[in-house]
């Protein structure tokens, strides 16, 4: 994931002569080699951006209905945003952020620790463990939502905080999926940190815990950021388990709550939904653009390592 973006020796440009011709290009040649790329680019951007422009416009439209949102930016007002204050939107936003952040932190801590063990120690059952994780990875947790529901009923009879309709229980369920999904991504990255570093530290008398906290974790920060971000984003948009576990409206996450608005009264709630959608997309979008470089790197790292 390191130098992929800096290396610009792509297939179309491997030929050395082309760089020189760049400044003296006839309009016809420009159109044939670069112009059409701009046409494609503009079309692709229009396709990608139109729904987003539309939702921003709809959120600013004072009529608040689906029909009234069709003329882009015909009127601009903040009534929909103000109206969110009378709903449970901000409660849901708070729930979603709490659940998302807690899950992300827990996932990073547990995933990194496990990846460290698999990467640095040689122990009986190591290969078996890695294979088991690979197999478990194939069986997404959400498929078992019925069993999760039944498990939480039983747990709730013992400790209500771990039962249905509890945010803590939902976080625990999400953390159950933490190892299966992320350990491999992290394991690959941990392996790229040279072992000589920790061996040197060990010779100096450092314990395994010191090596982990003070050396390894600092060198793998990029992958920690990626895993935290991916975990946060997937928790943010997770619907089926959240829908099954969280039952009272004040505990809902954004995905469950906004779905409720749109599915019950699409026409009338449209402005409200649009405003809510814009506000809930902002944190994810901002994080995403801010950490774009890391994410792209993380994705391709996964692809190379498999």
């Amino acid at each position: 994931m390191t130098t992929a973006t800096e290396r610009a020796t792509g297939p179309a440009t491997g030929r050395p002569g082309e760089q020189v011709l760049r400044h003296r290009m006839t309009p016809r040649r420009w159109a044939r080699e670069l112009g059409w790329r701009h046409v494609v680019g503009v079309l692709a951007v229009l396709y990608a951006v139109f729904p987003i422009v539309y939702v921003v416009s709809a959120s600013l439209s004072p009529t608040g209905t689906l029909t009234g949102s069709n003329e882009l930016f015909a009127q601009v007002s903040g009534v929909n945003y103000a109206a969110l204050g009378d709903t449970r939107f901000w409660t849901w936003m708070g729930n979603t952020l709490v659940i998302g952040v807690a899950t992300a932190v827990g996932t990073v801590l547990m995933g990194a620790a496990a990846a460290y063990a698999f990467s640095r120690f040689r122990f009986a059952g190591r290969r078996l463990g890695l294979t088991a994780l690979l197999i478990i990875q194939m069986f997404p947790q959400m498929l078992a939502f019925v069993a999760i529901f039944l498990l939480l009923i039983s747990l709730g009879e013992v400790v209500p905080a771990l039962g249905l309709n509890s945010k803590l229980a939902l976080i625990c369920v999400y953390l159950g999926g933490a190892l299966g999904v992320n350990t491999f991504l992290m394991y690959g990255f941990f392996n790229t940190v040279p072992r000589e570093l920790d061996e040197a530290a060990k010779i100096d008398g450092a314990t395994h815990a010191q090596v982990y906290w003070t050396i390894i974790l600092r060198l793998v920060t990029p992958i920690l950021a990626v895993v935290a971000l991916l975990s946060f984003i997937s928790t943010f948009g997770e619907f089926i388990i959240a829908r099954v576990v969280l039952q009272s409206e004040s505990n809902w996450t954004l995905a469950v709550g906004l779905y409720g608005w749109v599915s019950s009264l699409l026409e009338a709630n449209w402005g409200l939904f649009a405003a809510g959608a814009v506000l809930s997309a902002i944190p994810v979008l901002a994080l995403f653009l801010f950490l774009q470089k890391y994410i792209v790197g993380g994705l391709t790292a996964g692809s190379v390592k498999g």
Partner: protein
Amino acid sequence: MSRARYKGAVAGSGTFSGAGFAVKLVLIALVDALGVFGVLAAWRAGSWGILAATVALLAAANWVYFTKRSLPLKYILPGLAFLLVYQVYVVGYTGYVAFTNYGDGHNSTKEQAVDALLVQNERRVEGSPALPLTVVESGDGELGFAVVEDGAAEVGTAEEPLEAAPDATLDGGAVTQVPGWTVLDRATVLQRQDEVTTLRVPVSDDAADGSVRTQDARTGYVFQPVLEYDEAADTMTDTATGVVYTPNDEGQFESADGEVLPVGWRVTVGFENFATAFGDDRYAGPFVKILLWTVAFAVLSVVTTFALGMFLAMVFNDPRLRGRKVYRTLMILPYAMPGFLAALLWSGMLNKSFGVINQVLLGGAAIPWLTDPWLAKLSVLGVNLWLGFPYMFLICTGALQSLPGDVYEAARIDGAGKWRTWRSITMPLLLVATAPLLISSFAFNFNNFTLIKMLTGGGPRFDDASVPLGHTDILISMVYNVSGLDGSAPRDYGLASALSIVIFVIVGVISAIAFRQTRKLEELS
């Protein structure tokens, strides 16, 4: 742990017994305290399975963190514990439930079913005395009855059977005050009339003893079960009609002429749920259609997003192009948009009568994007293309830029044209680099519940089916609808789990084959 501390520790004795050990001790103490609390709670609730699991986890944690021989486990255990409980156990439990008839009518154990049957079929005992009754409320707001039987006061609630209350104050034969309880006045009782008339306070812990109920909140009568359970013979007898019910293989009490009592218990039913999915007329037809559509949807989603993503990646993989960064940033916006928001947004935009696509872009057409079976499928794929192409664009860009330049030079020397180079070099190399991600993308879309649920809700509905399924439903949304957890259908956990198992098997087999193929591809290149 600060760097200075690390240096100090390294330069010093080399042991790691200071702050680190203290932190460990505190954490373990905390875990133990919570664990003991859990054990006690499980003991109280009588949940032996949970109790055993908690004890096992606690013992494992203490052993792992206080012995020197389990170094790797120190790092793996926290994640492993969650993995075991919330993923491995849950998947295993799904496998178990798939072979039972767990669901509405078969919700509990046989014992609980017997109790429920006794409670539900109660009748006033002929000639039983009228008990003077007072409605009371406990400290935490629970309603209860205080009755006077043979001159002695007794208090109880729906959960707590009647118990003698010797320190209650009696006036005119009825209770007027009980310590620890609030006596409700007439107005409050009228307000909560429904609660009062439906309240049943058991006479004792044994459901066969019946309960006290009231209609007017002044006098109560003892109601006793019409049914009688004979534990030795394991039969239910209706005391009014004399009909004897015996347990059948389905987990219900059945009379000789085939009449069954409404509450059953869960029993294992073998492969019956799978037989229902594949063989029952109501499910088999939709199931096959949904299975085919699920596979088509997952494959086409990967193919379309990959094709568009790769095309765009190749178009923009030219360093002479100005503004690549801007294009790129704008193009990956859909990927950064949470999926559920996008699906909900598109469901509004594609609305037949009011949506922006029909009204503005198509000048007032009334195309039923989400309500026609084929158009709905097309819409689902289209929206997924919008959501997914930026991801493919990103990974293809990454992979293209790491392709070796020398093979292209060799191809050019050999006289290969642009098309030939693309077909024989770029495409295979790209596929090798991205294959694992394409497989996970397939697996993801195979279970892309959010998109289907939010965009079409599975609709339009099949017109020939009595089950809540539709033309765009995929397997996972079928599982959701069949499970009845959203209240739209009777709950059938057994069938839902069986379908989950089918999905597990399909996804597992496809992933295994695909990974094997990938490995072959990698060896070849």
